[in-house]
């Protein structure tokens, strides 16, 4: 469903993604790991359509048969792409419920579905909140305002559950969570797994992958995928760190 070819992106003239290739098929879970500053969030943001990044003419990204790079961010979301942010922003004055209803209805309208009225949405939100195990107070609180780091991450997963995308990119949704919250978030992700839905999990920790088993693990380093493998690769990284991979990259250069 997602095919990335030679993806190069720069910001203010600095090349950050230096040619990335990989393919995600329906139902798959891909983990992307890598040291700080290697470009993981940049990849996520570029896929979501952030305009701060200049994408090279040579690059191509196809998502469900469409040229993703041509679409503005909102149309990517409507096409079924979702990004859970590493640092979700706070939106004073806009309640979670209001925000999510607006988002869901935009997506429904773009798919030719009826808009949900406030009452139907209320039911849907309640169901999703129970499913994702978030406190009932989330609905009326302003989006992320005054949320703890962990609450923000859980709120992103709640949004994911409401929006039901085809491809979900989770940028460190597991960082900053205590053990209980991590279990809740992972269970949420597992509940949302389906043969039609794919995940890209950006993470630093094997912890998450113990709960959500990836089909593929990629290591991103200095803007390139330097190694790909199965779930054992994550275990190996957990044990040995990144130095051996860095050394290999150095030796190859």
């Amino acid at each position, binding site marked *: 469903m997602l095919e990335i070819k030679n993806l190069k992106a720069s910001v203010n003239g600095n090349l950050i993604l230096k040619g990335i290739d990989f393919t995600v098929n329906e139902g798959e879970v891909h983990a992307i790991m890598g040291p700080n500053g290697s470009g993981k969030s940049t990849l996520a943001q570029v896929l*979501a*359509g*952030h*305009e701060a990044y200049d994408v090279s003419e040579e690059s191509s990204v196809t998502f469900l048969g469409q040229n993703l790079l041509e679409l*503005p*961010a*909102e149309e*990517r*979301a*409507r096409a079924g792409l*979702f*990004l859970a*942010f590493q640092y*979700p*922003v706070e*939106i*004073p*004055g*806009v309640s979670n419920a*209001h*925000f999510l*209803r*607006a*988002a869901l*209805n*935009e*997506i429904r*309208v*773009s798919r030719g579905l009826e*808009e949900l009225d406030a009452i139907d949405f209320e039911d849907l939100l309640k169901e999703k909140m129970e499913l994702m195990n978030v406190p009932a107070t989330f609905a009326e609180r*302003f989006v992320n305002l005054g949320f703890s780091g962990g609450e923000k991450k859980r709120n992103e997963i709640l*949004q994911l559950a409401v*929006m039901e995308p085809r491809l979900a990119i989770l940028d460190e949704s597991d960082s900053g969570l205590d053990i209980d919250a991590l279990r809740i978030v992972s269970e949420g992700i597992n509940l949302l797994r389906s043969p039609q839905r794919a995940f890209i999990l950006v993470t630093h920790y094997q912890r998450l992958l113990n709960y959500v088993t990836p089909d593929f693990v990629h290591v991103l380093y200095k803007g390139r995928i330097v190694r790909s493998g199965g779930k054992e690769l994550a275990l190996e990284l957990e044990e040995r760190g990144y130095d051996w991979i860095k050394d290999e990259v150095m030796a190859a250069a």
Partner: protein
Amino acid sequence: MSTVKDKQDLKKAHYVSEWSRIPLNGDPIWLKQLRIRGAHLFRDTEFPNTRMEEWRRTNISIINNTSYRSTPASPPIALTQKAVEPFFLKNPAATELVFINGRYNKTISRLPALPEGVAAGSLRRAIQSPLARVVKTHLGSCLQARNAYTALNTAFLQDGAFVYVPKNILVETPIHIIALTIPGQEPSAAYPRVLAVLEDGSQASITTHFVSLSEHQPYLANAVEEIILGPNAQLDYCRLVEEKAQGNHLATAEVRQDQNSRFNGFMAVLDGNIVRSQVCVELAGDGAECQLNGLYLNDGHRLTDTQFSVLHSRPHGLSRITGKGILDGDSKAVFLGKVYVHPDAQKTDSRQLNQNLLLSERASVETKPQLEIYADDVKCTHGATVGAPPQEVLFYFRSRGISEAAARGMLTCGFAQELIEEAPTHAIREYLSAHVLAKYAPKEIR
């Protein structure tokens, strides 16, 4: 060649001649004297102009240069209650006092029963009642903001709204004053006046709603509100300025608070050409608290000027000033939060914040805190922001499928809504929310 001074004199002569035609109607001597004092002060005071510090950023020469006629006592068309009902609060229990060009109209007001001893109605009637003593004591008693226009309001004082709550009485239903301006064929001025006196330990909620039924004629609503709170009294006060596009508005509220009293003020400027919304509070007793919230929604070429000042005269006072503005088009807003802490006012706790959301690059804001602190053991903070919605926030919306235009609408409504939550009564909050939604929300998210 006529000089500025000559021109001013001409304008003043116009008002003085209008003034000389005020019918006397058996007014008591003290009221006539009060009017004469107003007329004197008016004649001896320069029109507000940008050479004056308080008016430096607010040019009202358009108002100064217009010779407004006094609005007729009875409007050309006979108004029914139906015509004014759209302005009523969505709360059937509310007292609805209708004033047309500053004069009380009892037949189209709605007057549910109020607790024993509470007065809500006309100043003119009160003067002829046992409450005359209260009116005489307080009317015109606390004019901190003396300028040519507040003086003019007093010079033309013939009627107004009067609310009186006796000691320890709690008025649970809101009192809504509808100040309706209906100008004549020429540019006309109305002089609405409000006097509210809350005795010791009493409590009430009052809203003054400035509106007009005129479609084209230019006018000026020149309003003065005086509010006196006894010890431990509590007042929720809301002022909604919703003038027509060709209507200018100058409003000055004077609030005098005795010890441990609480004033919760919400001043919203929704519409009107040039609107100056001023509130001057004196915390005259120990431990008095006031909250002044100002919301202004500007667009087109409109100008709003919000001036909130708090004079802390006694210890343990608390003041909270918050201004929020949304500016579109070529509009301009001025915001000034002024806090004066007297040497006796130790343990003062004062905060002010002004936030402005710019929806257009041509709109502008001038915001300034002014603190004068003469006591040493006080806490005073201030802050101001002016800006457009941040790109990162807009991107977050877009990443959820919400277009940038819809995102801006939601953010704008949310920005206003945060302050609207602070408005005193439910009906007012609903009214303001609906207004903001209709103005800023993209259709699909309403």
